[in-house]
């Protein structure tokens, strides 16, 4: 049996189908650049941090200016890839997030972000930002992003455990190795390490190793292409770490490296099973909780600058890392408002340092005076942001200064060195070829000149 549809119903159905298609198309094209204010995507480690940011940065901006900004919260782990997709499809929010300069360089080269030099002059950003941060944010001598948080990698340790064992934080290679041997003989893991759950974790250790074992000047020449990654000094350094891994010094050995997590190592530090841990200063906000949760005193954790891992490298290098860099979408309908919001985020020292004191979130790369810090700032945290601007021993974090493919190779290929499937020389050769390809394509961020 068949049914003939009356012509009027057919038109109704056709209309419905086109309306559906129009709606779908509409859904696909919604995105940033709306005229209802500045759109900002944020991601936070905890709901409390998000609430704090919303009240102290978003609401205060909306209340104190004629502009308005609306924040959409994303998952911390997804923000970078979501932004990539949005930028690529032309639907980016007005403020474009990037986890470091290597990504913002890419956006700038694709003309996806606006030049910010005029805004920098208007708001005086370059006077406030530390010189290395400004240099890093430039692409072909034009400012394309503003760093809003920065940190470093340091050596964490447990003061109580160090006192019990008569140790002091190592500053030289010999002291570091002596302490590792002593800790190993006492059944401890000398240096926490592992990459379970987050394979890129290896980049933290490699950043520490490269900076402490080669020094900023050597590393600068590698990052500018004047020296090769396969230079014997780099090969020897990777070989020394491999030997130490095989002895069980890093993470308890190769057999445990791939199942150790960052929380495992922080907990181990609190319980005395791990003697030292080289990690980022983002752990400042959470380290105390590992001590509390394991029944230890949260006042016991402390940090020291990285030791020197070579005779010709000064101890105490601080590899610098940009945690967040913000740009303005080239298609933004209100770039002036977006720039005003950028200034609101990074231009008020008091607000930034309150955020650091209350939530432990890293502040923008600005020179701070001791008197700038709120009274309730953890002195261990304050010390870092007082020491870095004073230091002349400033290095480079891989995720900030390496182009994306080279940085991915840095930690994915290193797995093969650990398992013995690749020699340190082969590893550095892979890095070398990948890096030079990206350097040639202009995808490598310009490193600041070491002091």
């Amino acid at each position, binding site marked *: 049996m*068949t*049914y*003939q*549809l009356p012509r009027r119903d*057919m038109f109704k*159905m*056709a209309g*419905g*189908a086109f309306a*559906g*298609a129009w709606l*779908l*198309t509409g859904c*696909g094209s919604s995105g940033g650049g709306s005229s209802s204010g500045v759109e900002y995507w944020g991601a936070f480690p905890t709901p409390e941090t998000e609430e704090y940011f919303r009240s102290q940065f978003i609401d205060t901006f909306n209340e104190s200016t004629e502009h308005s900004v609306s924040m959409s919260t994303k998952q911390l782990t997804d923000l970078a*890839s979501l932004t*990539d*997709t949005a*930028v*690529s499809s032309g639907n980016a929010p007005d403020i474009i997030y990037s986890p470091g300069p290597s990504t913002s360089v*890419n*956006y700038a*080269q*694709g003309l*996806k972000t606006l030049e910010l030099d005029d805004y920098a002059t208007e708001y005086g950003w370059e006077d406030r930002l530390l010189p290395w941060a400004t240099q890093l944010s430039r692409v072909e001598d034009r400012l394309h992003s503003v760093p809003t948080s920065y940190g470093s990698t340091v050596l964490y340790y447990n003061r109580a455990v160090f006192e019990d064992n008569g140790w002091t934080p190592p500053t030289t290679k010999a002291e570091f190795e002596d302490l590792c041997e002593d800790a190993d003989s006492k059944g401890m893991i000398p240096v926490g390490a592992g*990459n*379970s759950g*987050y*394979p890129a974790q290896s980049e933290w250790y490699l950043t520490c190793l490269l900076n402490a074992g080669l020094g900023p000047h050597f590393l600068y020449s590698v990052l500018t292409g004047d020296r090769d990654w396969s230079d014997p000094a780099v090969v020897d350094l990777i070989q020394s770490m491999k030997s130490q891994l095989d002895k069980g010094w890093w993470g308890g050995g190769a*057999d*445990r*490296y*791939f*199942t150790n997590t960052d929380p*495992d190592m922080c907990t181990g530090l609190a319980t005395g099973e791990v003697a030292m841990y080289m990690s980022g200063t983002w752990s400042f906000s959470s380290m105390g909780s590992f001590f509390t949760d394991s029944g230890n005193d949260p006042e016991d954790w402390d940090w020291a600058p990285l030791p020197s891992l070579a005779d010709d490298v000064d101890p105490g290098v601080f590899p610098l890392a940009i945690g967040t860099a913000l740009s303005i979408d080239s298609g933004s309908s209100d770039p002036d408002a977006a720039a005003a919001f950028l200034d609101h985020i990074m231009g008020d020292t008091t607000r930034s340092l309150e955020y650091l004191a209350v939530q432990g979130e890293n502040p923008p790369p600005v020179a701070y005076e001791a008197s700038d810090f709120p009274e309730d700032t953890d002195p261990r945290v304050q010390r870092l942001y007082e020491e870095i601007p004073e230091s002349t021993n400033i290095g480079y974090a891989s995720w900030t200064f390496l182009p*994306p*493919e080279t940085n*991915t*190779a840095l930690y*994915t290929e290193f*797995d*093969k060195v*650990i*398992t013995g*499937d690749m020699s340190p020389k082969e590893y550095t050769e892979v890095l070398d070829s990948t890096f030079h390809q990206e350097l040639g394509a202009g*995808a490598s961020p310009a490193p600041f000149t070491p002091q």
Partner: protein
Amino acid sequence: MSTTTLVAGGGTATSRPSPVRTNRRRRLTGLLFLAPLLIVNVLVIAGPALTSVAYSFTDWDGINPPSFVGWDNYAALAGDEAFVSALGHNLLWTLFFLTVPMSMGLLGAYLLSRIRRGRLLFQTLFFIPYVVATVVSAAVWRQILSPTAGIIPVLDSFGVPGMDGLNPLGDPELALGAIALINNWQWWGFLVMLFLAAMQSVNPALYEAARLDGAGRWREFWHVTLPGIRPTLVFLLLMTIIWSFLVFDYVYILTQGGPAGSTDMLSTLLYRTAFGEGRAGHASAVGVVMALISATTIAGYLVLRRRLRWEV
């Protein structure tokens, strides 16, 4: 359907619309019913799929304008150790899931079909893992298999041999097998349910006839049960091959392709290449290869079905 029309000059006459017009109208009606689905398909499947094919011939970082490189991405895949290794892992995965869970599912369903009391209890127990969210079961299994906090150190403390230093997810030799077993833990109960439903639709008279002819349990299973559930079995074999080349969730959650690429699959490689390394053109080529493998599998199935005259 006929229509009645008034004829000029008085009276009525019954007239039939021309067959050509009726057919055209019928086709149009069908197309209009299909239109919403078709539009959705074009927008969210065909469009991106064709775009991916186009991008696979470009050098594209996902942000800047792509540049045409011809077959370079495909040529690079042939010499790409990571790709070859991931493809090998997918093949091993397919082999495992075509044999182990299938056998377990068939055996479980057959045994359940033989019992009446307690069947529902076993069905529920077998099916529970399937309804647990992947991310939850993966997290639980990671904890269970932890070399420091899981069951292994406990078993080692009881002197169970082979437990000392065992690290299933951290050992490149064991990690892929460990993930496959974890995935199978969740998967095989679902197969039991599907096979059991299929077995219950087999005509009982066939079993009676087989028994009258003196067939034992094995012959009964081989000559009655298996042919009776062939549509379900063939469909699941086909889908197992396709799903095995799309596997992502357990691998990504448990090891993200590590250690040292020992659990890398085409899907995790694609994800890392596109979003970690910014090589979207190269990643598109990996995606096209994955789609071709699935298409070849389906084509093979269709050819077999026609040649063997399967009524599936």
